């Protein structure tokens, strides 16, 4: 960590936490934001300060991506914590929360501790683990939620696997409440979903792919919301992707239930037609939905009903993807493409820039109680300098992730990360 203070001058500050979007600059000392200057004039800076001229680029808080899978521990050929951290840094993501469905499953405090130690050793970006909600992520018996919370896990979840047994889900929500631990759960009715490779509909039918109806999401969500009402536990709905489920979620929010939802950049950017000629890079969990659903999800992010957007980064190597569609592994890498893909909605005029940025900075930070995600005095100097308008072409082969399974391959996007800073240190760009 450089002792010399750094000033980022001549930038467009975008800070959703304070609502400020305008010219300014900021000064970083000892890895912490020491001062934020609003307006074009930085005033006279002391000579010891290293000045970085942003040349009008956008400076925003480093992105916080709360749903990331790596292959570590257990499947390092797919992705290591280090390769994920490098990809994140290149994508302007300065904090990731890794999912517990590893080998071994992160269902007890020593595995949580392992991730935190590895992250410290790598030292590039902030890495936090989510703990498993149930032992082995099997949905049968509660995991050591209290001990994992003490060890530093940020929330608990069984990741892709829904907790089928309502009694178990009830106990997890109730038990986690004692420690004020957030429970994330993917709403998917397991029986309707069994064997499905795509969203049920005219397209899947024509393609001959077994489908899951959109209401499978709503059915499980309704159960979860009812259990939240019963237990008072805090729920994070992991990836809301359908209009039907959004209706239920809106009702729960109106009631004042302690529920928050994410959606993934994949479900904001693609629909079922993108599967096209059985493109397995577009096979994700939950499956890509209809265009009506996609539009509803975009609307929900715009209105703030869905507060957090995640990359749902899920590396899968070519050998797991180059298979017949129904046999191919689901998942898409997304750490490096999250920001430019999200900026699409700004360039299209669909969602105001500051609201888009909020969904990947201060909103997840507030949800998980993190000090980052804001350009405020005293906050960690996790920053991204980004050219909002620069065109980029996504070339999956050039992505830093060890796995190249990006559905954005070949897409033209706008928004280029120039520099990524974590705790005042530049971890990407120059």
């Amino acid at each position, binding site marked *: 960590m450089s002792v010399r203070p750094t000033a980022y001058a001549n930038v467009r500050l975008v800070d959703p936490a304070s609502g400020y979007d305008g010219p300014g600059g900021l000064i970083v000392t000892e890895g912490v934001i020491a001062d934020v200057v609003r307006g074009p004039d930085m005033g006279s800076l002391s000579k010891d300060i290293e000045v970085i001229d942003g040349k009008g680029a956008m400076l925003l808080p480093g992105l916080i991506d709360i749903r990331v899978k790596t292959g570590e521990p257990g499947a390092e050929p797919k992705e290591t914590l280090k390769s994920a951290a490098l990809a994140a840094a290149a994508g302007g993501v300065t904090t990731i929360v890794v999912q517990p469905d590893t080998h071994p499953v992160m269902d007890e405090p020593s595995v949580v501790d392992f991730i935190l130690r590895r992250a410290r050793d790598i030292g590039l970006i902030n890495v936090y683990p989510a703990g498993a909600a*149930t*032992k082995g992520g099997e949905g*049968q*018996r*509660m*995991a*050591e*939620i*209290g*001990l994992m919370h*003490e060890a530093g896990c940020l929330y608990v979840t069984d990741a892709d696997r829904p907790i089928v047994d309502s009694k178990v889900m009830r*106990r997890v929500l*109730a*038990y986690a*409440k*004692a420690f004020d631990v957030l429970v994330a759960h993917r709403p998917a009715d397991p029986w309707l979903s069994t064997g499905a490779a795509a969203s049920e509909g005219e397209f899947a039918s024509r393609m001959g792919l077994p489908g899951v109806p959109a209401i499978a999401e709503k059915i499980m969500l309704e159960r979860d919301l009812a259990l939240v009402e019963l*237990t008072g536990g805090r729920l994070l709905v992991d990836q809301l992707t359908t209009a039907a489920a959004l209706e239920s979620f809106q009702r729960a929010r109106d009631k004042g239930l302690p529920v928050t939802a994410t959606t993934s950049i994949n479900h904001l950017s693609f629909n079922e037609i993108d599967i096209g000629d059985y493109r397995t890079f577009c096979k994700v969990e939950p499956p890509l939905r209809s265009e009506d659903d996609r539009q509803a999800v975009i609307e929900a992010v715009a209105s703030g009903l869905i507060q957090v957007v995640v990359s749902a980064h899920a590396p899968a190597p070519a050998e797991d993807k180059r298979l017949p569609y129904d046999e191919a592994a689901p998942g898409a890498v997304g750490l490096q493409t999250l920001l430019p893909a999200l900026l699409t909605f700004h360039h299209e005029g669909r969602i105001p820039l500051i609201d888009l940025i909020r969904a990947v900075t201060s909103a997840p930070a507030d949800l998980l109680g993190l000090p980052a995600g804001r350009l405020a005095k005293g906050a960690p100097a996790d920053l991204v300098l980004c050219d909002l308008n620069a065109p980029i072409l996504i070339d999956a082969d050039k992505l830093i992730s060890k796995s190249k399974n990006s559905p954005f391959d070949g897409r033209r996007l706008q928004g280029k990360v120039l520099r990524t800073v974590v705790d005042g240190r530049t971890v990407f760009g120059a």
Partner: protein
Amino acid sequence: MTTTPPGLTEVLQRTFSFPKRHFLSVLDLNEVEVASLLDLADGFVSLNRQTSKKLDLLKGRTLMNLFFENSTRTQSSFELAGKRLGADVVNMSPRSSAMSKGETLIDTAVTLNAMQPDLLVIRHASSGAASLLSQKVGCSVVNAGDGQHEHPTQALLDALSMRRAFGRIAGLKVAICGDVAHSRVARSNIALLQMLGAEVRLVGPPTLIPPAAERWNVQIFHDMREGIAGCDVVMMLRLQLERMDGVMAPSQREYFRFYGLDREKLALAAPGVRVMHPGPMNRGVEIDSEVADDLSVSLIQDQVEMGVAARMAVLTSLAARLENDR
């Protein structure tokens, strides 16, 4: 006939005729009755400490222990209580007899009733079993634990232990900690302690606090440190190990970390705090041996001793009532 031990005359003056035929629930008692039972039990404590413990208050009476659930502790406590009072005591374990072979509880009751017992002590895994039995027999029924409902003699012996330790019960702050949801001991204690003017708190993870317990006029804490802060009595409950493997709590080590009573947590309680446990204990799980075995804070041994005396008081009072019926 035993020689009259010192104090017996005085103790016998405390005997009162219990106004009800059965001893099923704390809710059947009132404050005056409880005080009388405690006074009488107190007397039996002194008598039990003498070399000659045999009395003849229940001479000629038959006491049947009918334990559908195993319980060495409670069964031997009732057995001793009966024998010291001079009753003939029969222990029945229906699980190991013909009665378990498809016979209903009521059939069993009718069968036993035909043997003309005077007092029937029942322990059963189903809530309400003691009450059901009491409707079908002619003798007095004592509830020695029915499912997750009540264990009224345990509450009585706990009250006796507390009254002897503190000289009073009114105004005491009592934290009942652990598996309240499945505990008949907790339910009987909550009712009795509140009747006697104590302030009751429940401490445990949300999974082990009974739903809607906040309507029982108790304060509920999920943080044990907050829950036992300033308490005069910390009453630990047993948590069955199989409930601790991810069912109601994630693991034994997590349970002990957050809900096990150790010195560090106990230091937050009031000065002079006393620790109780109905037994049998899971050492190192719900209670640290260091605390359980420290006789300056632990009332756990006392509780066992008080158990015999409290049960003698209950049996004597019920028998006195039988006398009046005659």
